[in-house]
């Protein structure tokens, strides 16, 4: 008996010593390989490989990318394109692993870029896209890919805007005449709808992991505030307290769905689709599902209410970013690939597969004309406001919001914001 304990402890000690010994000097860098530019005379690149890492927007995402690859390979048969598609749920941990291992994809499709840009890992996107391609992107959306330093680090690839979706049948039943414009009207409508009973909730408030940052930003903007105060992102500020107090009021007043602090937008959408929710902030992707699969649910769209009644506009874009792998051939291949990707012929199929809205001016014009269902979302695209994704500070604040904003259901607004601020400060 004593023997095994001793052996165990001795071994543990040796093992941890060994680990400690290694930690002081283990090199963790990969040598950067620099190859001179070797563009062939015929415009064909020599044999090389570029890597793409992208999330799966829908089941068709893989095929959507493969169509572009096929087209690209017609032009550049020597360039091998390695496509990696991953589910959304763990996508950021996949990206983190690749970055940590210093194995950078040449093209990454993601919703953040500031951290990589700040660390100097990226090409400015203008270096890997032709001027014509850059120009084809709607300027209001392109702006969202600008870093804190003013450089264009990322190019949006799909966009979505948010609007208030409301169930017209429930509004009629509850005797609410029009979509709410102010917080007071929203409260009133939500109260009346919740009073209908039968498991119907007034307002869908998804403060779970997935969208707490979106929902809390919208309420902050609705209160007339902004996360940025004197060039710095601040969580614990009076306007934010006001915004969080308003969210809490809805929760405490029984005007939202149950478990607001652990609800993701999809779950709120499930309620909405089944006619169990009066209103929620929604987007074209979710409502496409409502239209196709739950036609009995009648709804309309309205601007997002605010405290004063001035509508809040909110937009999100995902991005294409290109990592600097210190290889001129790969860079050139990346450039040609992206130019093909954003070409009208291929981009149309690609963006449609995502279920979201396009970013190129020509496709936006085409969509506006043909896609009447999403007319209001298209309209909103031209004046939307974005989260401060270009600011590396936002990564920190966003994660603190995602983890902690939901505790508003059981804590005071002041305390919740204090906790969020403490988490942000600790990482400062």
């Amino acid at each position: 008996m004593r023997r095994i304990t001793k052996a165990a402890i001795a071994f543990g000690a040796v093992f941890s010593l060994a680990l400690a010994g290694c930690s002081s000097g283990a090199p963790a860098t990969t040598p950067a390989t620099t190859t001179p530019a070797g563009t062939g005379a015929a415009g064909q690149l020599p044999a090389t490989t570029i890597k793409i890492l992208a999330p799966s927007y829908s089941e068709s995402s893989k095929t959507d990318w493969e169509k572009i690859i096929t087209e690209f390979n017609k032009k550049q048969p020597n360039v091998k394109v390695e496509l990696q598609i991953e589910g959304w749920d763990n996508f950021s941990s996949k990206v983190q692993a690749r970055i940590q291992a210093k194995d950078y994809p040449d093209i990454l499709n993601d919703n953040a870029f500031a951290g990589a840009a700040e660390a100097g890992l990226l090409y400015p996107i203008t270096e890997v896209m032709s001027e014509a391609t850059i120009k084809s992107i709607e300027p209001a959306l392109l702006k969202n890919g600008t870093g804190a330093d003013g450089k264009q680090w990322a190019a949006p690839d799909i966009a979505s805007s948010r609007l208030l979706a409301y169930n017209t049948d429930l509004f009629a039943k509850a005797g609410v005449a029009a979509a709410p414009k102010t917080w007071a009207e929203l409260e009133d409508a939500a109260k009346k709808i919740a009073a209908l009973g039968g498991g119907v909730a007034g307002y869908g408030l998804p403060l779970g992991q997935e969208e707490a940052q979106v929902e809390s930003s919208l309420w902050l903007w609705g209160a007339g505030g902004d996360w940025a105060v004197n060039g710095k992102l601040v969580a614990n500020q009076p306007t934010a307290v006001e915004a969080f107090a308003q969210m809490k009021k809805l929760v405490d007043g029984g005007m939202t769905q149950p478990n607001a602090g652990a609800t993701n937008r999809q779950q709120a959408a499930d309620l909405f689709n089944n006619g169990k929710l009066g209103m929620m902030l929604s987007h074209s992707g979710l409502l496409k599902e409502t239209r196709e699969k739950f036609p009995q649910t009648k709804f309309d769209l309205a601007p997002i209410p605010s405290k004063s009644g001035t509508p809040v506009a909110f937009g999100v874009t995902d991005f294409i970013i290109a990592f600097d792998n210190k290889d001129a051939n790969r860079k050139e291949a990346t450039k040609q690939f992206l130019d093909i990707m954003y070409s009208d012929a291929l981009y149309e199929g690609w963006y449609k597969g995502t279920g979201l809205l396009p970013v190129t001016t020509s496709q936006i014009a085409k969509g506006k004309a043909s896609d009447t269902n999403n007319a209001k979302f298209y309209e909103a695209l031209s004046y939307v406001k974005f989260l401060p994704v270009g600011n590396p500070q936002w990564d920190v604040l966003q994660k603190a919001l995602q983890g902690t904003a939901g505790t508003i259901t059981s804590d005071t607004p002041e305390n919740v914001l204090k906790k969020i601020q403490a988490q942000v400060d600790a990482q400062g």
Partner: protein
Amino acid sequence: MGATASGRRWSGINKAPNPIGIAIGCIVVAAFFAFPYALMLISSLKSREDIARIPPDYLPEQPRWDNYLTVWASNVAPGGALLATTVISVGATLLVLLIATPAAYYIARFRFPGRLSFLFLVLITQMLQPTVLAVGLYQQFRDWRGQLVWVALILINGTFNLSFAIWIMQAFFASIPKEVDEAALIDGAGRLQTMFRISLPLVWPGIVTAIVFVFVNTWNEYAAAFVLVQDPALQPLTVAMPRFLGLYIRDWQYLFTTAMVAVVPVIVLFSFIERRLIGGLTAGAVK
């Protein structure tokens, strides 16, 4: 917990079990272990509308058996993923058997300095967190492209499952009296031969337990495969299946369909191997 109350009645070793009691026990145990999979089955037969219905229906309005066909043609291609998972699981199981058996045998038969340290070292591999180790594994194996990535996963899964195999097999080997071996050795057989010819057949239950353990763990492994496999066509099931859950379009029914299909090979393997576990050791073989 249903099994507790009902199970207790048969915890003794009665020679003539009460048939009614047995029947009730069977039903309770079966229900307890099947109910989540009943939900899985029902859900796999629902349409996308039905799967998000509030309140949910107990049974789908119209069972969508075609889910089981359409899922194969989907972009997630569970067929290829099933193949990947099978190759990796079989490979890792064979690797572990090949490596753990001699180690376990020797550990059980001999005492030598370093024996306990060895056993403990093996145990430590089980204690490490794959979530955090995954990045290191990725750096180590990232040039193993194409099907080689399966080999990498076989090595990784094999290594992380060695500990149980060695520990359990050594416990079983140790339960065979030394005299059994020694008789064979005197007859002129080598150690290795003795192990294979004499000892192995006597420890079948232990070997089968190890096989099933390694196989099932590899079948379910996620962390390493997630980080390592780049090519979607080579992904094993655990990594491929979440792709059914897109950002806005979440095909739960296909996820459950694939999960149902994935159960079949394990159950088939088990039904073959189970005979060994139960019948492999005759009562008289060990004193």
